[in-house]
């Protein structure tokens, strides 16, 4: 049978419509980067909204930004940077056939990703307690504008800051949850020994997604937490 000869000659992970593993990997990589391009535009709309309102309500947004916890934000940035390291180490381990190191780094990524969401949850809880969640119970009275101790921030302008804070960090957190799902699947696949130096595209593509979500946070952190911090 020519069929069995073909499968014997081929890498079992090579799909029949690709000529060689390299071509299959490059196609996956290109597709992933196009997807990340759409994600840039997806988040880009929110960043544009941020710029427009930040310009219009400069002082009010500075006052609202000052109520965020920089320590928690910076910790979360560090947690995500560490998770990016474990992801790149996982890709390296998959390419150099180190199964235990691969599984260890995938699990470390899951722990760090969950820690990020936990810290985010603590921050969200604080917003509810302080009535900083946009809606009927929103309160932002008698908060002075940075640099203008005699002026109070406009609560409805601050509310827009918090609305955008929740949409941007919420959408980012949603991406983190999806990423954690992807990495659970990758861990199971790695546990079954599916990845070899010849075939590790899922680890590589999952890694691209994770790093992209990290880059989004790298911009969210200064824009939301660090504006008008100075006394």
């Amino acid at each position, binding site marked *: 049978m020519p069929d069995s000869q073909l499968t014997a000659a081929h890498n079992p992970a090579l799909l029949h419509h690709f000529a060689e593993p390299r071509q299959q990997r*490059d196609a996956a*990589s*290109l597709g992933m*980067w*196009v997807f*990340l*391009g759409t994600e*840039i*535009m997806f988040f*880009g*709309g929110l*960043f*544009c909204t941020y*710029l*427009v309102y930040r*310009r*219009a309500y400069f002082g009010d947004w500075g006052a609202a930004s000052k109520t965020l916890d*920089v320590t928690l934000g*910076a910790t979360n*940035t*560090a947690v995500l*940077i*560490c998770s*990016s*390291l474990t*992801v*790149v*180490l996982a890709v*390296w381990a998959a*390419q*150099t056939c180190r199964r235990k190191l691969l599984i260890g780094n995938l699990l470390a990524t899951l722990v760090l990703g969950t820690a990020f969401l936990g810290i985010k949850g603590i921050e969200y809880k604080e917003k509810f307690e302080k009535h900083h969640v946009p809606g009927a119970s929103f309160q932002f009275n008698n908060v002075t504008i940075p640099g203008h101790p005699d002026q109070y921030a406009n609560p409805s302008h601050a509310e827009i800051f918090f609305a955008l804070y929740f949409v941007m960090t919420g959408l980012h957190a949603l991406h983190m949850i999806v990423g954690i799902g992807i990495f659970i699947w990758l861990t199971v696949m790695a546990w079954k020994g599916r990845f070899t130096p010849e075939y590790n595209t899922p680890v590589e593509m999952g*890694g*691209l997604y994770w*790093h*992209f979500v*990290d*880059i989004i946070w*790298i*911009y969210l*952190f*200064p*824009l939301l937490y*660090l*504006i*008008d*911090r*100075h*006394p």
Partner: protein
Amino acid sequence: MSAHPSSSLKLYFGIWITLLACTGLTVWAASLDLGPFNVAVALTIATFKAILVALFFMHLKGASEKLTKLVVVASLFFLLILLVLSMSDYATRTWS
């Protein structure tokens, strides 16, 4: 892909330390009063970090396929159209 396994490990750890240092730097810079340059400094550091992640963690530097680089450049170009054209509109409105 990884011709020199140990050298790429060194690179990854070096990038990791740099990214953590930049996070500390941006928090420290935010506590200084630089006037309008506070935002510029914060965004410059963020862009530097993002470039490091893209080039070395996402392996864009070693990407052999020109098409991948084209997709990245095109995405950033369209993002710039979105941001620059929108802001040039809002920044030049004389009515309110």
